[in-house]
């Protein structure tokens, strides 16, 4: 079966910055593909390229087998785009917004009305259809924006950081809505900075940094790449953090990491007896712990394992440059 997206050696420059630097990506139908990376990694640029808003400087992008450079009009008939902003009109009602997009997709007046009502139902917004959007909450607005990209029944939905700025409740609602879409047969490419989001939604995760793919696979495969399980300890007293680091160093396969923010020390371990060992070790040294756990690595740790730097640090050094220079 033809992949829904095939990108080969895609390069896109903005002045000196190589926003996409030979990006290779294949997204298959039937599951959500998540593009995960820090700010400035090139996520938005890639989505805009697939959406035919940008022309790559080199390389090829095919959407459902259609060459985006040669036939952008055909690609536009197959996609729906929801960008980083809820780009719906506040002075129009939910139904009016969706009907307008339906009409732009070439639906007749009647078809557009049916499609708009259908989409509102699916997104749980039927009760708010006749309200002006300026009375919607942020989460409702984002869901309506998602709806706007659905009215044309696209084969591929492009979602650029769909849950950024939403409260936890709004985020979970939107996740549900996105999962329902895939169940209905729409393919989804979404970008996110949230590892949890990729983990929750995606069947295929592509980690990118500086415009290149640095790892790809199912969330489980990626976690396997970080190798082993992680042993994590939270001391009762903050002053014990260094002592725990010393204790964990004797057990782990790599140097322990201390996270001051969450008051935790973690270390990758091999095998399965470490939980008992660490309890005994802490007991011997008279260190009290609030929480001791053995868990699968998070995608944070995967990112660290593949790039040698944590997600957050990468965020700070490459900054917003790439993704804001062309946002306007």
């Amino acid at each position, binding site marked *: 079966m033809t992949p829904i997206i095939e990108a080969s050696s895609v390069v896109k420059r903005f002045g000196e910055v190589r926003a996409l630097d030979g990006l290779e990506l294949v997204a298959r139908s039937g599951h959500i593909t998540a593009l995960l990376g820090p700010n400035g990694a090139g996520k938005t640029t890639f989505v805009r390229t697939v959406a035919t808003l940008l022309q790559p400087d080199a390389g090829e992008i095919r959407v459902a087998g259609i060459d985006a450079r040669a036939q952008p009009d055909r690609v536009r008939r197959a996609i729906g785009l929801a*960008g980083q902003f809820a780009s719906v009109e506040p002075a*129009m009602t939910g139904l009016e917004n969706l009907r307008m997009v339906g009409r*732009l*997709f070439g639906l007749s007046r009647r078809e557009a009305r049916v499609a708009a009502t259908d989409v509102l*139902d*699916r997104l*749980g917004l*039927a009760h708010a259809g006749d309200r002006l959007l300026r009375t919607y909450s942020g989460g409702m607005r984002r869901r309506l924006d998602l709806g706007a990209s659905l009215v044309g*029944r696209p084969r591929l939905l492009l979602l650029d950081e769909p849950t950024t700025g939403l409260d936890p409740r709004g985020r979970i*609602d939107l996740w549900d809505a996105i999962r329902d879409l895939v169940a209905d047969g729409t393919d989804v490419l979404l970008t996110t900075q949230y590892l949890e989001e990729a983990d929750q939604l995606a069947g295929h995760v592509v980690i990118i940094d500086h415009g290149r793919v640095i790892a790809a696979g199912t969330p489980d495969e990626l976690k396997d790449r970080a190798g082993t399980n992680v042993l994590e300890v939270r001391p009762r007293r903050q002053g014990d953090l260094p002592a725990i680091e010393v204790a964990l160093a004797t057990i782990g396969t790599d140097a322990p990491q201390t996270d001051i923010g969450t008051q935790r020390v973690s270390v990758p371990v091999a095998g399965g007896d470490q939980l008992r060992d660490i309890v005994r070790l802490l007991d011997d040294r008279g260190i009290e712990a609030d929480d001791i756990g053995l868990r699968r690595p998070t995608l944070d740790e995967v990112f660290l394992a593949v790039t040698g730097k944590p997600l957050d640090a990468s965020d700070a050094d490459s900054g917003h440059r790439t993704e804001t220079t062309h946002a306007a």
Partner: protein
Amino acid sequence: MTTTTAPQAPVRRVVGAGYTTAALQSAKRTVLQFFRTPQLLMLGTVQGALFLFMFRYIFGGAIRPGSAVDYVDFLVPGFLVTGILWLGMSAASGVADDAATGVHDRLRSLPIPRSAPMIGRSLADTALTLWGLLIATMLAFIVGFRPDTDIAAVALAVGLLVFATYSFMWVFITIGVISANAQSAQGTATLLIVPLAFVSASYVPADTLPGWMQPVANNQPFTIAANAVRSLLLGGAEDVGLEHSTGHWVALSLIWFTAILAVFASIAVARFARRR
């Protein structure tokens, strides 16, 4: 999420909207935005009224048109022509806002003709500006404007105002698509329209301006259009103390605004449609 499964719409080939539908849907959005935002609706009207009252009653006493016409009759045609600037400038920030908030991205990702959203925008903003000019005209009669003209000349004056509005709207749309955000678009538009409105014969006769300013004032499009509308509404070019005939000013206006339309509509559409 909803638990009922909505009936699936029949699967159909997405064809995309035709030119007219795409342009009209975009226009409709702009018009609804205007009429449902009471601040916008009030601001334009009140601002226009204030301006008119200020010139008519505050500065008006000190300004002598230097011909047989009263100042209020001299003022109103210039006021209507420059109204295109003051009322139309909101298009610049509106377009810039759409570009900055992803509305243009969505429109450009849809299967519609690339220039249609901008055409729609230009039609809608022209209609809104004309709406403002209509209100201004009614106010003008209230403050004592009494034209001396005939139906044909009035029709020509209206036609000229409509055409100039449509043409100049593309300047504002161009400012909108090249600006990073609404504030900078607003700033650029202001920088452009203040000299166009004031270094002109719109509010005062050009010969009362400093000598070095007069060549600019006399030859810029808004003076020419003001002269044309004035001649048409006040009984001819000689009656308002202008050189050349009424026809001269009308023709010259048409040339100016056709050129503006051609240049800026091309820039705006190309800029909107480009894939960088």
